[in-house]
């Protein structure tokens, strides 16, 4: 529906192009994204800058609903030979797109012409956009699961060091002790809060962060095998269940907006979510800071669930001019990575990630190390950000955290559901 509106607003040129199947006015860059909230506002800023910098290129922008709806439309538009020139894709979705031949490969020589060489991007993000040795996207950021903390509550609870930074919460017991302190000494209703109800992705991110610290894997062989390590998964599920059900350090029934409200109103000492919620709490003008998701189970190795926003060029014939324009656009967006970083995302573009401006950006740069420990969703045709995989795993994890199902029963159900997909021949 939004796509329709966007095209209609684009005017007659677009309508004619839509009917005849020709590109919109030559030299026009069309861009599709899935950014709402603070990200949407920042992206709009960056797009305006691009237009000011490149008045010779026309520009059209469409924002669609996050998750499956966006990816379904992007695939169908590409199949119908009407794709945008540049689209946003989560890194975890790339393998499916590539398997479906929906993305144009970005060859080193073309990228180098725009200065987009591999050495200028963070390593994990670069790996995430490389499929079978070929590059199919330009990474824009890494967005890990991070820890938000209320500085007033944590100070009262004695959880801050002399510089006002959070003391280490690493290790399963330390993490519980910190939450307990926030609740008891800090005077908060809950030690921490992580959305459960009506949520799938958040539950998955929480589980996956802890599970991958234990070194656990979910799928293998491009999703045709379910390789869940039951002992490790149960250890994590029991730990999560304890936090809500047994120790009552976190509420067992709270939805996404509810979790935000609890933290923003000072009723919870900690909040865990993707870093993109930073804008929400800045707007709320509350005392908070952010840091790495604690290393609960990892010991000397750090891991955290993360994904990357990447910019892709959906396949449409082989038109060098179109690719040129697309990469000009992509370079302009990367150059504005600092604006993007203000929204919480860790820049993948090293010239900005290593700059003093970014390092001075607080609290955003506190968790920059997460980019190196990033664990992406496993590759499978049904996996990736907001996918069926996240829905299946997240729904099961939610029932454990809400105390509605035992860890054993939920894990059994989750594996059975994943196996249905693993057994289904891949359509891509």
């Amino acid at each position, binding site marked *: *529906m939004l796509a329709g509106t966007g095209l209609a607003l684009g005017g007659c040129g677009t309508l004619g192009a839509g009917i005849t199947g020709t590109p919109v006015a030559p030299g026009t860059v069309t861009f599709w994204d899935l950014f709402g909230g603070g990200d949407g506002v920042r992206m709009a800023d960056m797009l305006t800058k691009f237009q000011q910098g490149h008045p010779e290129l026309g520009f059209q922008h469409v924002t669609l609903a996050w998750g*499956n*709806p966006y*990816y*379904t439309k992007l*695939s*169908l538009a590409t*199949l119908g030979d009407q794709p945008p020139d540049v689209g946003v894709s989560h890194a975890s979705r790339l393998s499916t797109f590539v*398997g*479906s*031949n*929906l993305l144009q490969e970005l060859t080193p020589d073309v990228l180098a012409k725009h200065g987009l060489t591999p050495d200028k991007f963070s390593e994990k993000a670069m790996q995430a956009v490389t499929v079978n040795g070929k590059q199919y996207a330009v990474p824009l950021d890494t967005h890990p699961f991070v820890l938000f903390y209320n500085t007033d509550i944590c100070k009262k609870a004695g959880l801050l060091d002399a510089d006002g930074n959070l003391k280490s919460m690493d290790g399963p017991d330390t993490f519980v002790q910190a939450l307990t302190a926030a609740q008891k000494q800090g005077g908060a209703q809950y030690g921490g809060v992580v959305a459960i*109800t*009506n949520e799938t992705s958040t539950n998955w991110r929480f589980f996956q962060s802890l599970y991958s610290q234990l070194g656990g894997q979910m799928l293998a062989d491009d999703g045709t095998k379910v390789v869940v390590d039951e002992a490790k998964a149960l250890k994590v599920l029991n730990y999560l269940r304890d936090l809500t059900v047994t120790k009552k350090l976190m509420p067992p029934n709270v*939805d996404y*907006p509810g979790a935000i409200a609890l933290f923003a109103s000072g009723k919870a000492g900690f909040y865990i979510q993707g870093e993109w919620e930073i804008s929400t709490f800045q707007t709320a003008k509350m005392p908070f800071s952010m840091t790495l998701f604690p290393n609960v189970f990892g010991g000397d190795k750090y891991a955290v669930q993360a994904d990357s926003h990447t910019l892709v060029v959906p396949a449409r014939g082989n038109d060098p001019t179109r690719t040129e324009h697309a990469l000009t656009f992509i370079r302009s967006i990367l150059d504005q990575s600092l604006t993007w970083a203000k929204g919480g995302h860790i820049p993948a573009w090293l010239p900005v990630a290593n700059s003093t401006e970014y390092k001075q950006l607080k609290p955003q740069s506190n968790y920059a190390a997460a980019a190196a420990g990033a664990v992406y969703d496993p590759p499978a*045709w*049904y996996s990736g950000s907001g996918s*069926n995989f996240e829905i299946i795993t997240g*729904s099961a994890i*939610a029932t454990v955290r809400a105390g509605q199902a035992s860890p054993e029963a939920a894990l059994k159900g989750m594996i059975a559901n994943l196996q*249905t997909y693993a057994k*289904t*021949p891949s*359509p*891509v």
Partner: protein
Amino acid sequence: MTTQTSAGGRTRAPAAPAPQRRRHDDRTAWTFLIPFLVLYLLFVIGPTVYAFILSLFNGSLVKPGLGSWAGLGNYAEAVESSEFWSSLWHTIYFTILTTPPLVVLAFLFALLADRAVRGRAFFRVAFFLPYVLPSAVMALIWIWIYTPALGLAEGWLSAIGITAPTWLGDPNWAMPSVAMATVWWTLGFNFVLYLAGLQDIPRELYEAAAIDGAGPVQQIFRITIPLLGRTTTLVVVLQVIASLKIFDQIYLMTSGGPNFSTIPSLEYIYDQSFTNMRIGYGSAVSMLLFVVILAVSFVWFGIVRRQESGV
């Protein structure tokens, strides 16, 4: 309504017209029917046959060709899949929740509006107006009404001391909430059908009944309801078919959630075919749904035929 007028004209065509004349009539009729038939073949019969063929292969949306031969494998997978059955149940549950109120309320409101001598035109427009809204607009309105903490529904209920459920967020309440919104949205269509039916009933019948001493309630049960029989059949069947086709409101209001509790058959087909790109399997499921709707339509034909021979 159409059935009523056409079936009402019970005069048979004059017996055995000259054969030549008939052939000529046939040709004229076909000439007029051709544009319709071409479109019908192109957009209904053609795709149906194509979908049936697709359903026998492991087709993928992103690969050219039909894919490998699956035989009845897709059908077997659907019948064995709990997701398929739960989506079918959600569709039927929605139909059960919406059809009775949409028939009964439409009848009651039409009865009341028919009595209102002055404001009839106003009521007709007032009840029909929501029906004109696109599903997206209707969904947005009701998402706001149901919004926890801020929504109208919660505000009103808490004003009279009732704790509101989390409407679209509670697996037990999500479907009834969508159903309520749908009743408000589509009531006007059935209402107009009933109103037209009511206006077809001759006034003299009521006068005669009143003279014989029949009260208003008796008049409704002995005259209005029996004479609206055909309208009711039509309304019920159109309603059941419309409800079985549920997709837009649910996709827009809950996208099948929470925890898959509202996914209807059509969304299951959409998800499988376009999100999962399994076009062969999606076609098989849509064939199965087609059979269900076909069965409902046959029941309707049975009822109509019995009514026509009985009355």
